[in-house]
């Protein structure tokens, strides 16, 4: 599989990731993504039929891996008064953002 990422592909992915690339960033990004994807295609040399994907290594540590989930009980969270002032735009109750829908 030879990667052939186009400007349109990068634009589509950038949209998915909410990244707006400046026009001068685009050629470099297309070139880098093609180079990296061609390199990672080496993985296709390996036969992984019947291999279970490994998403979490905790299962391998010999303790049965189970890091049990915490109990579902209410505990105090951060105070609103400590958190809201960190927002770029707030009335200290809500986060304020620009218009969502154009009229």
């Amino acid at each position, binding site marked *: 599989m030879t990667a052939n990422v186009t400007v349109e592909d990068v634009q589509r992915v950038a949209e998915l990731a*909410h990244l707006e690339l400046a026009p001068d960033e685009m050629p470099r990004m297309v070139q880098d993504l093609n180079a990296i994807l061609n390199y990672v295609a080496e993985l296709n040399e390996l036969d992984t039929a019947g291999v279970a994907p490994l998403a979490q290594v905790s299962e391998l540590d010999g303790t049965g891996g189970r890091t049990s989930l915490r109990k579902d009980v209410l505990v105090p969270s951060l105070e609103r008064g400590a958190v809201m002032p960190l927002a770029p735009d707030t009335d200290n109750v809500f986060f304020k953002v620009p218009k969502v829908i154009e009229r």
Partner: protein
Amino acid sequence: MESQTEIAETLVEKPATLARLRQDISSGTVKAADLAASYYDRIAAINGQLNIYLSLTKERALEQASRIDALAAKGDPLPPLAGIPVGIKDVLVMRGAPSTAGSRILKGYRPPYDATVVARLEAAGAVLLGKLNCDEFAMGSSNENSAYGPVRNPVDPERVPGGSSGGSAAAVAANLAVATLGSDTGGSIRQPASFCGVVGVLPTYGRVSRNGLIAFASSLDRVGPFAGNVRDAATLLGIIAGHDPMDATSSRAPVPDYAAESDRLVDGLRLGVPAEYFGEGLDPDVRAAIEKGIDALKAAGCEVRPVSLPTTRYAIPTYYLIATAEASANLARFDGVRYGYRSPASENLSAMYSHSRDEGFGAEVKRRILLGTYSLSAGYYDAYYLKAQKVRRLLADEFLRAFGEVDAIVTPTSPVPAFKLGEKTDDPLSMYLADIYTVTASLAGICGVTVPCGTTPAGLPVGMQVLARHLNESTAFRVARAVEAAQL
């Protein structure tokens, strides 16, 4: 050459040991407040040259130091790190202190809570000096991706300190802290420790809480210590390790006395040497230094035998697919709404997201978000992300099989010594290959220690990586102690 050596001699300084400082502080010979002040003086004198600290937490540090001095004056028992000056990588949050993760998008962010490891260090008496420079969101192998400028290597300021925890490694090398914390996702503790000639620890995945670590790739991220010697690194790990209800992947396994365990001799330990870590691309000077280290381990009574890890050559592609996929998900939170940078000129919500992210993130972060989003997107998931997770299983199984035959595996930490600033910045792939010996342990979740193992003829530090099976840090520390004792 003359002048370079002169600079190096003034910038590199080995920190005093914890044992020594502890004795001086408890006897009152040294006041914790004076010690902290002397570190701030040294930082003021040379941080401009090296760009190691991004911000200082003086008020909090001096308050803590006074508390320690008051305890010592009363003759009360002192906590294990009483008065020890420690620096914190800027990807770990500290309440009220700037915590930027090396990114413009978090400029001015002062988080409302402490990372669990920060709280544990402070509860143990440590004096937290400030926040250390790093690659943006811990993405990089040279510290050149920091939005606040690169860190320079104290050994040779024309060279990189490694990354992404370059500030954490350089701080210990230049004695701008006695010990530091960093984070390691694909080698970000081990590689800079080797480039700067200090000890760095990759704890087992889940051994140290990630609560308060600004996330890069959650199935790989670990927090670990740097120190000037192996025993002190072991002491630090003992303090930050242990279960934390705030991190669902945190292990409940009991925490051994790592420092005491590291005192045990290595006589009779079985060490594996994988040929795959000594092939093409390994600098001959690094190879020679590591071979001397292995000879020293034999002389100390270790039994050395070859082990085979044939999937090693697929580790870099596997790592970059998994790490970027997880990063694209983790970095979705930076949207200009709740904290961090918001682009001022945005006509609607969607434009606000993309302008804020475009202006807030640097090139390498964008590259990784795009790669991760691409490999997770419809039509590519099976070919890239799922395939990488399957290869991850093969890599981990290979290590588990090897650890059935040997107690630890020794390798070079990096194929090359510290390179020059700007040498690899034009080619992301060649930069990724700098992690070739470290990403394997990251993917497998096993632990390791990098320990100084001599220098190249040009005087650049070489690090030996000692890997051990999950939750077996004690063995890695013992082997590293033996390398250290050989004084290569």
